[in-house]
């Protein structure tokens, strides 16, 4: 067996690859310009990684059941705007309100998927459009500044542990929770079963409709937390400002984190590394010295290379 095929046969690859890729990237950045790895650099990188991570975690749970949620970034932006608008009046209560609202929005996505035959791609594309419009209408196409009670949320951004803001640690906490959910609970096992083989799951009397609703509800909930991290960082929310372009980085982070797009293979802890890697790419590009114009190209090439590395080659003959 050639070295390449031996590498392909190593079945633990998809578990180990995401952290390895991230470390490799850190080494590359460090070699070119070690300033980027200092406390300030780490702080900036993880701050930008935080909303990506939260969106990616929600997405990875949906990917786990074999679906995709194209609307989760829009949900989180909508949530950020709602939060920014209601925070002055209701304080912490508004956070609870927004989280509940977004979880319900996610559950509605899931319910549509469970009870109609519309594929998740098409369904969430529609929801995406609806929520983007809603965000514009509710915000009046303006930036909403949090006039009062701002400290309640910005503290998450300004408090740091190991130079890393709490918004990122929040993401790590969610990742660990979701990991435990998938490995150690019945509902988690059911979600993975649906992703691996939905027909088999149905005929084993698993509550597949509930599983779908639950996965999308989780996506909505984490989207709400992503919205929180956006408001924490910017002190405001805008339909075109910070956090308005989270969809693709979120998906990329999930994939770089070893999540299978066909379902049944998700490791939320690796998604943390995926998000860090994705957040670091622009930094690495700068450190290496590529021009700003080539950023998209390098980003694209890089994502393809990384996903190829982290997608296990032993998963089977069919990769979507």
């Amino acid at each position, binding site marked *: 067996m050639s070295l390449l095929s031996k590498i392909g046969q190593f079945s633990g690859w998809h578990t180990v690859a995401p952290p390895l890729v991230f470390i490799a990237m850190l080494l590359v950045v460090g070699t070119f310009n070690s300033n980027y790895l200092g406390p300030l650099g780490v702080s900036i990188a993880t701050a930008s990684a935080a909303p990506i991570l939260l969106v990616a975690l929600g997405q990875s749970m949906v990917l786990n059941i074999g679906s995709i949620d194209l609307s989760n970034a829009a949900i989180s932006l909508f949530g950020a705007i709602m939060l920014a608008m209601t925070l002055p009046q209701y304080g912490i209560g508004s956070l609870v309100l927004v989280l509940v609202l977004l979880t319900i929005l996610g559950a509605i996505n899931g319910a549509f998927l469970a009870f109609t035959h519309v594929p998740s791609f098409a369904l969430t594309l529609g929801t995406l459009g609806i929520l983007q419009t809603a965000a514009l209408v509710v915000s009046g196409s303006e930036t909403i500044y949090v006039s009062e009670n701002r400290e309640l949320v910005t503290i998450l951004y300004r408090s740091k542990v190991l130079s890393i803001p709490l918004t990122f640690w929040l993401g790590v906490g969610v990742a660990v929770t979701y990991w435990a959910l998938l490995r150690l609970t019945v509902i988690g096992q059911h979600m993975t079963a649906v992703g691996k083989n939905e*027909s088999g799951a149905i005929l084993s009397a698993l509550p597949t409709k509930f599983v779908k609703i639950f996965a999308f509800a989780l996506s909505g909930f984490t989207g709400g937390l992503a919205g929180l991290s956006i408001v924490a960082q910017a002190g405001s929310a805008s339909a075109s400002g910070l956090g308005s372009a989270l969809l693709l980085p979120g998906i990329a982070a999930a994939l770089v984190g070893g999540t299978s797009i066909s379902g049944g293979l998700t490791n939320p802890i690796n998604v943390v590394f995926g998000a860090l890697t994705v957040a670091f790419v622009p930094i690495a590009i700068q450190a290496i010295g590529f021009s700003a114009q080539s950023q998209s190209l390098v980003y694209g090439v890089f994502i393809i290379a990384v996903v190829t590395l982290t997608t296990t080659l032993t998963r089977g003959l069919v990769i979507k």
Partner: protein
Amino acid sequence: MKNDNPIVLKLTNICRFFGSVKAVNGISMEIRRGEVIGLTGENGAGKSTLLKILAGIERPDSGTMEINGKRANFRSPNDALKAGVGVVHQEQSLFTNLSVAENIEQQNQMQTGMSRLGFQDWKRINEDASEVLKKIGVKLDPKARVGELSFVDRQMVEIARAVCVEPGGDGTPLIILDEPTAVLEQAEVEVMEREIRKLKEFASVIFVSHRLDEVLRICDRVLVMRSGMLTRDTSTQGITKEELFRAMVDDTPTLNTHKRSPVRPGSVPAVELRNLTMEGRFKDVSFSAYPGKITALVGTNGSGRGALMRAIFGAEKFTSGSIHLDGKLVTKWSIGKAVASGLAYVPAERKVEGMIGGFSGTRNITLVHRGDSAWGQILRPRRMAKTAQSWFDRLDVNPNNIRQPLNQFSGGNQQKVVLAKWLNSPSLKVLMLDHPLRGLDVGVSQTVNAELRKACENGTAVILIPDTIEEALEMADEILVLRDGEISARHDLSASNDLAIKEIVAEMV
């Protein structure tokens, strides 16, 4: 028996090792033109590897192969095709989005080329396909899309494709049929036999099967493999099934048929159907399945048995009629309710519906009935493992590794795990199995059947769609014959043991 026909295939000491595993260990044999050779042996005996060598998918490590007198050194399946070897595999390899003719033409293209200036010659493709189909006696529209055909019809297309090989010159084609009857019903098996007899006129056939009755009936000679070697190579005249068994396994298994007692009057059926109807599939089906009894549903493909079983399980909706469990009418039936009421269903399509391939044996077994494997929502890995291990030991699953993903096991062992999943129920009232022994070797089949009998002793009602009528006669207390969706006959085996298979086939068609 004509012994002076030219030799089509000659193998001398063929070996293929995978590391320390001697999959094929010194096989030597000869096949002459017009011979039908049966190849049998347990799963893992080396049959598939030998077939792969003949088909050009694998290359032997040592030994020589001669086809039609010429040394053969296949480097790819294409080489095998050109030499005149056509294989019909057990797992279908058709292109489901193309038509029947296109699939048949696939094979031909490598031989004669069906295109003029690069364009497809549709008229000729369809005509040639019709000819081949006629030759093998199959009524199919060459323009039909393969994906819309039933499993059986697709099997026929596979055979048509394999028959298209032309070795050129006066070489004889060698057609290899890998378990062709595994998914065929009785009437279709007879069609298959007719075809093989037709094939004898211009080709030689290797017929791989677990069904010893068929092998003895259809083949001129039979070869038995065990652990990579040939243990018998003999004419089928005068040899018995028991002798074949002995050549296949190390110990002589017993074919037992248990004594049947009639149902006690006044006992409540575990499940009773009254005039159950599903539009387009079955009509007015009424019967009762009693605890501790096995009911077999026999019929041809399309007779509605599979749909009937799924309706009882709640997987498909029925149009009218009623289902009664333990005497009580069920309403708004669903799979969840069925399973909670003690029903179980082992589907025919094991890989797609019966199991979660990517999950370990442990997770598969504890998937439906958790028992003490979980505290509410929290899984208890050690209890799960204990449960799984005890089932693996009881059913002798090989390899005995409860953590290995189930898709890495052989079909027979997968089936054992699927069965364990349902036997793991605290109260199993009705166990339904659709073609449970399909593709399984003798040893595994006996383990499965023994478990079914044990379940009966524990009071479970078993409803079974068997692969063969012999299976039904061996296992069932009652046989129901379905034809075109309706029950055409009932046989209570506690009353009479003299049932002719031909009689049942007549009730099926």
